[in-house]
């Protein structure tokens, strides 16, 4: 029986002046490790392990909308769906679709847009099922090499696929992709596989080989070392983001598209690091 030990990391925000401010993600993710509780008392449900990141599209700030509200609510809704068992592990797109529909059922008029990346580990079949919409993504690293990764979905440069709810007056103008447009993959995982899920803030600033270098330093699968590694990856990406001379993957991509830029890309960086380990009670 496998289990996934999930650690969530500091989510670096950058405000207008570019200063670093920490903001811890709500620790619910760690509670996703569930097991059977003594049946004499309260009853909980099994559910498979579940990772998710969503990146709020920043342009909404100009319209007076807090971009983190939409993505935050989307992910909390996904989590609720999973907690209540209203999902099929092999259909992560279904989780995304149902969650998006639930957002529309909220009395509060939510506005905003978000990318989404969902990774589900099915314990019984040892398979990982993923759904990715937009430019967040995941990497699966085995034996120091990347064995699986998500594809970025972009309409055009710096405009990723995104779920959105637009104000009525901007209905046709705002980009809104259907959850069905998400990329979905399924593959087997093994003991020791490292799954890294992150927003584009990481991938735009740190190429794969740097990430792999950091992951090599991971010695064992206990909480402290994984937290340390994830932290160092995020911090490093953050430093590179503000380096004006560094040829980041983002700058490279821009040059390939005819834009002459250098340097990192300041952005919110969220990194989730997990290891497939032996199941213990």
């Amino acid at each position, binding site marked *: 029986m496998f289990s996934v030990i999930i650690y969530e990391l500091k989510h670096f925000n950058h405000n207008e002046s570019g200063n670093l401010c920490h903001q811890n993600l709500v620790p619910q993710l760690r509670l996703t490790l569930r097991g059977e509780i003594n*049946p*004499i*008392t*309260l*009853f*909980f449900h099994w559910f498979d392990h579940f990772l998710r990141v969503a990146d709020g599209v920043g342009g909404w700030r100009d319209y007076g909308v807090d971009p983190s509200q939409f993505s935050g609510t989307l992910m909390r809704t996904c989590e*609720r*769906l999973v907690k*209540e068992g*209203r999902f099929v592990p092999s259909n992560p797109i279904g989780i995304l679709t149902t969650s998006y*529909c*639930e957002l*529309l*059922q*909220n*009395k*509060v*008029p939510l506005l905003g847009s978000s990318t989404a990346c969902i990774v589900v580990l099915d314990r019984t079949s040892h398979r990982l099922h993923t759904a990715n919409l937009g430019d967040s993504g995941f990497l699966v690293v085995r034996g120091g090499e990347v064995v699986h990764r998500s594809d970025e979905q972009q309409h055009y440069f710096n405009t990723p696929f995104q779920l959105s709810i637009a*104000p*009525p*007056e901007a*209905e046709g103008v705002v980009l809104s992709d259907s959850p069905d447009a998400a990329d979905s993959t399924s593959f087997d995982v093994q003991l020791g596989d490292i799954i890294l899920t992150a927003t584009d803030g990481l991938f735009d600033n740190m190429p794969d080989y740097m990430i792999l270098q950091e992951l090599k330093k991971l010695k064992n699968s206990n909480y402290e070392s994984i937290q340390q590694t994830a932290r160092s990856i995020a911090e490093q990406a953050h430093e590179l983001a503000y380096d004006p001379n560094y040829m980041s993957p983002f700058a490279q991509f821009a040059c390939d598209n005819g834009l002459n830029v250098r340097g990192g890309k300041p952005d919110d960086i969220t990194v989730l690091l997990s290891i497939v380990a032996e199941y213990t009670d």
Partner: protein
Amino acid sequence: MSPVFPMLTVLTMFYYICLRRRARTATRGEMMNSHRTIESNSRTSPLHAEVVQYAREVVDFSSHYGSENSMSYTMWNLAGVPNVFPSSGDFTQTAVFRTYGTWWDQCPSASLPFKRTPPNFQSQDYVELTFEQQVYPTAVHVLETYHPGAVIRILACSANPYSPIPPAEVRWEILWSERPTKVNASQARQFKPCIKQINFPTNLIRLEVNSSLLDYYTELDAVVLHGTKDKPVLSLKTSLIDMNDLEDDDYEEKDGCGMDSLNKKFSSTALREGPNNGYFDKLPYELIQLILNHLTLPDLCRLAQTCKLLNQHCCDPLQYIHLNLQPYWAKLNDTSLEFLQARCTLVQWLNLSWTGNRGFISVAGFSRFLKVCGSELVRLELSCSHFLNETCLEIISEMCPNLQDLNLSSCDKLPPQAFNHIAKLCGLRRLVLYRTKIEQTALLSILNFCSELQHLSLGSCIMIEDYDVIASMIGAKCKKLRTLDLWRCKNITENGIAELASGCPLLEELDLGWCPTLQSSTGCFARLARQLPNLQKLFLTANRSVCDTDIEELACNCTRLRQLDILGTRMVSPASLRKLLESCKDLCLLDVSFCSQIDNRAVLELNVSFPNVFIKKSFTQ
């Protein structure tokens, strides 16, 4: 040994035994006294471990605010651990019923109450929950997170829904019951009523609610059942014995029996009359009938057993013109219907809502009853009557040619083909299909043939494919329509609205809540306002495109407006609301919850200028 000794020994032993017995009696007597003073809270001995459970599943309910297949504001949120408690506010993760207050009783679609409804039956909605294990309940706690105070009755059932063997006998017992009372705060609370002890284990609990005193929708988060697996040791009834309580018990016990034993007695024995009955029989027949009109149904059945004269009166079909059996749903079964049959040949209004579930009423029993009693039937309430099937609807369509009012609200187990029979009831004036699985063709057929329709509810009818087609048919055929409920009709567009507005000018009430495909920019709301001057109630709940222009059109054209719900739009300003309130003098309900331009201060200001209007502004935190 002399023979005296054995005698002495026997005597002594005898005396000893007598003394011991007396002593035991005295002790028991003392024990009884001390138990009477024990309060109902402390009843289990420390040897019995208490089991605490959250609900496993919601198995039945009469209504909810949310969409089918959703987890926002739906009854299924009541199962499991709480999501919101102890926070207060209007949250998606709670269980919310469809209505609150008295607003639905005040609008044009409200129906008149049945006569002879017992005053202690005030339940408007219910929800049934199961738990994993059967226990002897010691407490039931309800976690309410918004506008608490709706729960008025808690019942326990002896049947185990998870047992593969069908139960021999299904009993419902009231654990707690109270009149609706006003709770002053709208904050979250853990409701812990004192429940009665019962002598059977249960894992099926039913809550009945009455929201008429609430200022807004009540929201429930979870239900906790405390109980013991073994029967409590104290077999004496240790709860404070309330005389009224016993009375109610008697009602419940004898209800079904009353009618049973009546028939038996009547057929077998000759009832004797006493010589002196106080000249009661000198009263005119009609006067006695009038007096008996004030009795509840069980009392009427009991009175019938007293003497021949009263038996004649109590069995007179004129006493059964209105027959409300909903308050007795826990006991009503085929046998009860059979015994009532003979007296119900003239029944015009029949309420079987909530009855017959879990095998209490069979299709055959219902059919038999309707064959005898259906000919004069004008109004038939069958809300949440899950025993109904296609045959039942066929019988209704054949046996009730005069039917004008049919309520099948929340009969979600009725198969779609059952609704085909309703089209035969051409005299229908009121039809409620809330939360049923009716399909498009059956509905179109009904609309085609039932041209007398004045009140139609299609709320949450999720199997209808294209509401524009439905609206078109309504506009073409139902010219007399006065009220229309299209709550959560997911795909109606401006085309449907146009057909409705031009085809049904008599419309007084229109519920378009949570219809996301309506866009104000198409001018559909403005058109509604201009073509429906008689509108008294308009719900545009959660339509994010409602804007100032629409409000102004309503202000100009719909001056009779009494209830308006524009929850959740960002595009309406306090200024246009002021115009509306100035123009519509009869407006009494205005829901501006989650309207971002209308903050609390704006509401306060409007309240000062228009003190007779209830302006509702819900909140999440």
